[in-house]
């Protein structure tokens, strides 16, 4: 009963990253979202600066620091995220990868899938993006693929639901 999986035979088999990236439009969406997020502290700092013009130098310094951090985040984060957020499906399994510093890979057999959800926020709709969430009967967390384009997401959902229906049982 031991080691009847074909993978165990090779000396060093490694798990490769999932094959597909999410939609390129996701980069633009993440950039916009990050930029909007930074507007709030920036606006607060500008107000602070204007309210205390007698001694502006420390405020200007902090403002400059914030601008630099924000710029790096807005430029680097979406590119990085695009490179590490990946997904792949086969008729038997769904495989996702996420996380920039802490890498998280999830694999679920299609036969154990319980629900496949899609969600689109208002801004995501503008960019033509869809998030797909695949859940199993475990409460240990779903598989999420964020930032697919509509067509790919729809095709993925159709594919998963049709293969899931072929399996019976309560998938626990």
């Amino acid at each position: 009963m031991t080691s009847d999986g074909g993978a165990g035979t090779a000396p060093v088999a490694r798990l490769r990253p999932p094959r597909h990236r999410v939609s390129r439009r996701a980069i633009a969406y993440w950039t916009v979202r990050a930029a909007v997020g930074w507007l709030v502290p920036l606006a607060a700092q500008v107000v602070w600066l204007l309210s205390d013009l007698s001694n502006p130098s420390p405020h200007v310094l902090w403002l400059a620091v914030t601008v630099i951090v924000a710029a790096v985040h807005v430029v680097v984060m979406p590119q990085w995220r695009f490179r590490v957020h990946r997904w792949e499906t086969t008729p038997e399994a769904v495989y996702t990868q996420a996380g920039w510093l802490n890498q998280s890979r999830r694999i679920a057999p299609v036969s154990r899938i319980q629900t496949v959800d899609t969600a689109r926020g208002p801004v995501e709709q503008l960019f033509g993006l869809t998030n797909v969430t695949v859940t199993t009967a475990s409460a240990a967390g779903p598989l999420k693929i964020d930032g697919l384009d509509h067509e790919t997401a729809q095709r993925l959902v159709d594919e998963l639901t049709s293969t899931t229906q072929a399996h019976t049982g309560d998938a626990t």
Partner: protein
Amino acid sequence: MTVDADSGLAPAAVAPQWRRLSSRMLAVHPVQETLRALPALLIAFVAGRSSGNGGLWGLFGVVVTVGLGVLRWATTSYRVGVDQVQVRRGFVRRRVLSIPRDRVRTVDITAHPLHRLLGLVRITVGTGQSDRKEGLRLDGLTAAEGDRLRVELLHRGAAVATVEPEATTGSVATGGVVAGGVAAAPAPAETVLASMRPGWVWYGPFTLSGLVTIGVVAGFVYRLANEAHVNPGRFGPLRAISHQLARVPLGIAIGEVALAVLVFVAVASTVGYVVAFWGFRLSRQDTGTLHMTRGLLTTRATTIEERRLRGVELSEPLLLRAVGGARCIAIATGLRVGRGAERGGSLLLPPAPHAEAVRVAAEVLGDPRPLTVRLTGHGRRAARRRYLRALEVAAVLPVGLALLWWLAGWPGWAPVVALAVLPVAAALAADRVRSLGHAISGGHLVVRQGSVVRRRYALAREGIIGWHLRQSIFQRRAGVVTVIATTAAGRQHYSLLDVPVDLSVPVVAEATPGLLDPFLIVG
């Protein structure tokens, strides 16, 4: 259903009749509610002596609670349909709780002393999802009715609708109970897997359950002192004790208090053990269920469907391990584990000799190998991470105290004494390293980890419904990965900490053959 069940005699033509709780419950409620309100009443009474009418208020409270109890009895009814169980309750807001019968995963029958006096039981139906809420609970069925309901709910489909008495104090089968029109057959064949031996009480003091008792007692005394303005210092024996403690040197006083607490915890833990687990018995019925009964005063009977079972957890808290004890918990879908596991009904064996726990776990799994198989350790890098983690956490105390000494002028000996936590942390880390390991044994993934509570999980491979491989930036540099098997049962996920990357793929591939193959590259 608009028709109310009034007579209970009309033949159920289409829909089954609504059934009521036993009217004997009317006798239980007032006593039960009064007992529950006793601390509050006591406080009200003591406080009332100064303000004048506390007793009156207390009486009023009792009347209200008793009234509510009667109302609850009158408005609660239930029925078991072909595919649904329904409970109807509520006076102002009528609520009907419906549960599909195929969602029923456990049936739990408890009877506290008052219940037992009157031959009543409380039945709790576990559905997994709703077990945090009240779920489906019926308080006050007759014992026979409760057993009938249990059999009805769990052994559907099978034509054997049988009843055996065990929630009551083990008399001979009364028989003759009719379930769903099928006359009671002889009791199903049953194999006893474990039953408690008096010697197990020895493990009681090492469970430390008495600490909870201390907490409860201290809380009660504090409330009493606070709300009723009772000054404990005026209480004779207490005053004598505090005087005695004030006379002796500090070291001896601390020693005396520690000894007293130790004795109290040991006694309370032992009493707790006996009360909770006396008469423990685990059996397998040929209808595909595991049946557990226990309890000295309050009896408790839990039934778990074996098709919900996904494995077994063997846990050894440090103290219990030191005296060669262990306990056993079921990993099943729809059953709670971890905190409240004992009340949640997944207990398979109370603290008992280690060999006994292994034997029972093997019986339940139907395979002894997962419990004895040699585990693969996670290597040097995992070990280094255990030490680092432990020492990082332990260093907080001496470093913090040193900072306080430096900045706030705290005594200088404090950080030096606090250095003593470092060897303790190192010892714990060493033990964690020894514990850590995994194996695939037959149909099970076996994981062991922990020191303060060492746990060995045997999780059925078919019960694994996904994998989560997690690597922090430090783990990536160390070349290890945390492999998490997700499941619908028990804790929902079981982790293999810091598996060397080269070992991780074979584990997953062996536990779930073929799943990983498309995602692998060689070399």
